[in-house]
């Protein structure tokens, strides 16, 4: 295990009587690409701002490379930030924007020129030194913001939804770029976003935040395959959650649906607690003719909606008792099979119990 770069211990932030961040404890390792993912208002940006020194926690401890920085002002922290709005200094040239931090830390002359050059090279903006921020496109401004932070070689780089203002294509491109730069410089990145796709493609680990705390902290695959709370299951990717009476049958959890059908999931997938549910991702489901034999979990239903999405087709199937399930099917057989599922057709939904997941009691209602 690499060294811990940033440590938050029971950090809480109140604004008036509103709790923005509610007792977060986490460690970020050296060189890690760590993401705080969550909807707006979940406390992710406040958490980032506390690490950056722009907010003081109401209680708790923040450590940077083993040193307590909880009440250290922003300008004395070895941390730099890429702001959501970029916050480039409009009256300074690109060169002076990037050189700002270096000059403040007393670096002079050729050393400044050399390091600004390196930073601009890293973000592929050589030749833009004399321009003003207003003369840049959104993507370029974003790169300058990145260079301005990275040039100082901070212990940790904080990124507050840095791609939020870019259009979709540029966002994907910059996402790949960010990951490349992070690997190249080896600096710890703490990244804040509400975009689960962005988080999944770039991060080593993700903390999925909701209402001031994180519900699950894990790598992208684990978050997707084994979400442990209802919130994570629905925020990261699409999910079918099967709610009902919880039971136990040997090595499996059982959920008895209101329709009387019973679905199972192995106990080693997680603890269902007393108020949990069994879930299954849409692509893990297979659609069969009503009469076809199958093993594992099985539910009967009627196709109510079909949408063709190119790579896959998405079906909505309504089972007994109005239960609606989302099914994705790869468009492999579609060209050879003339009878694809159409709305109104009776189908059977099947999946292997070990392809499901188990969510436990929710921490928050």
């Amino acid at each position, binding site marked *: 295990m690499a060294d811990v770069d940033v440590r938050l211990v029971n950090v809480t932030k109140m604004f008036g009587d509103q709790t923005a961040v509610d007792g977060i404890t986490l460690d970020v390792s050296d060189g890690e690409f760590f993401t705080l993912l969550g909807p707006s208002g979940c406390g992710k940006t406040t958490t980032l701002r506390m690490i*950056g*020194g*722009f907010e003081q926690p109401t209680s708790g401890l923040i450590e940077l490379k083993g040193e307590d920085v909880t009440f250290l*002002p*922003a*300008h*004395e922290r070895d*941390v*730099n*930030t890429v*702001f959501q*709005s970029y*916050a*480039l*200094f*409009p*009256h*300074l*040239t690109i060169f*002076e924007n990037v050189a*700002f*931090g270096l*000059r*403040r*830390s007393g670096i*002079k002359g050729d050393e*400044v020129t050399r390091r600004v050059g390196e930073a601009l090279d890293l973000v592929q903006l050589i030749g833009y030194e004399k321009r003003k921020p207003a003369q840049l496109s959104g993507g370029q401004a974003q790169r300058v913001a990145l260079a*301005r*932070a990275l040039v*100082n070689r901070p212990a940790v780089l904080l990124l507050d939804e840095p791609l939020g203002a870019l259009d979709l294509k540029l966002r994907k491109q910059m996402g790949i770029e960010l990951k490349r730069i992070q690997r190249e410089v080896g600096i710890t990145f703490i990244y804040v976003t509400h975009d689960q796709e962005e988080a999944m493609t770039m991060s080593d680990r993700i903390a999925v935040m909701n209402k001031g705390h994180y519900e699950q902290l894990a790598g992208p695959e684990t978050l997707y395959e084994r979400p442990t709370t209802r919130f994570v299951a629905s925020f990261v990717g699409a999910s079918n959650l099967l709610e009902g009476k919880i039971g136990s049958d040997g090595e499996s959890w059982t959920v008895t649906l209101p329709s009387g059908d019973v679905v199972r999931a192995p106990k080693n997938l997680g603890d269902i607690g007393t108020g949990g549910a069994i879930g299954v991702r849409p692509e893990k489901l297979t659609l069969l003719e009503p009469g076809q034999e199958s093993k594992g979990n099985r539910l009967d239903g009627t196709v109510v909606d079909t949408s063709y999405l190119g790579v896959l087709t998405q079906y909505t199937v309504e089972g007994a008792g109005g239960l609606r399930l989302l099914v994705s099917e790869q468009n492999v057989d579609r060209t050879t099979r003339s009878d694809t599922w159409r709305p109104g057709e009776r189908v059977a939904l099947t999946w292997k119990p070990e392809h499901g997941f188990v969510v436990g009691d929710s921490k928050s209602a």
Partner: protein
Amino acid sequence: MIAFLRRRPGLLPLLLLAPAIAWLVAFYVYPALQMLQASLWSGTLETGFVFSWANAATYSTALDRYSDQFLRSILYAAVSTVVCLLLAFPLAYTIAYRAGRFRTLLLFIVIAPFFTSFLLRVLAWKTVLGDDGFLLGPLKSIGALPEDFRILATPIAVIFGISYNFFPFMVLPIYVSLEKIDRRLVEAAKDLYAGPVRAFQRITLPLALPGVFAGSLLVFIPAMGDFVNAELLGSVQTRLIGNVIQSRFLVNNDYPTAAALSFMLMAGILAAVFMYARVLGTDELESGIG
């Protein structure tokens, strides 16, 4: 009309500017030319005035004779501008960033004096600052100040009056330019190791310069032409060029000298404004100096 403009969109700005241009021609260019003409007259109101280019000597004579008042005007206007700037910047800063819900109220208080007439305000100060007024009177009677101490009829009183009267013109532009600054820029500066003083010096101040520039002009220009404050709060020793022009025009009926002085005042102000713009208004001011 609209169809015509559609075919020739370049004419629209001209059309929109037309009223302002007409106004300027009627009430600025034409009177200015008339003044130019008057400055080259000779004669008196009784004998009638005669125009001749040879009368250009009026300019040098007037400048010679009233150089004291000219210099005094420049000095008083400059000092008042600096006084206003020093008082207005902290106030504007506080209103913009620290006033919270009192912001509107404070702005209202800044412009509140405008609800009374200019003349009335100056007269009020004359009473307040009077030798036995309610400011100095009690202090003198308890012996805190000598009997012959005075503020009224001193340069201080005139500069005070000018500063007081034009103060809002300094506060408002500075407030607007400060208020416009994205506070995240200051956060970014702090993120890049700038302490509060450095962040102010490198980010807030340079970005507020347009407001400082506008405010200084709005105070300096009318202060250069002031005669009311000098007349009511000052003495013979504090006569400004504005008082001279006023008395030449309206008391002595010496139109040529008054017109020549007005013209030189205008030229002087224009020259000062351009010099000031050269110093403050350049883009390169802030960059490059570590």
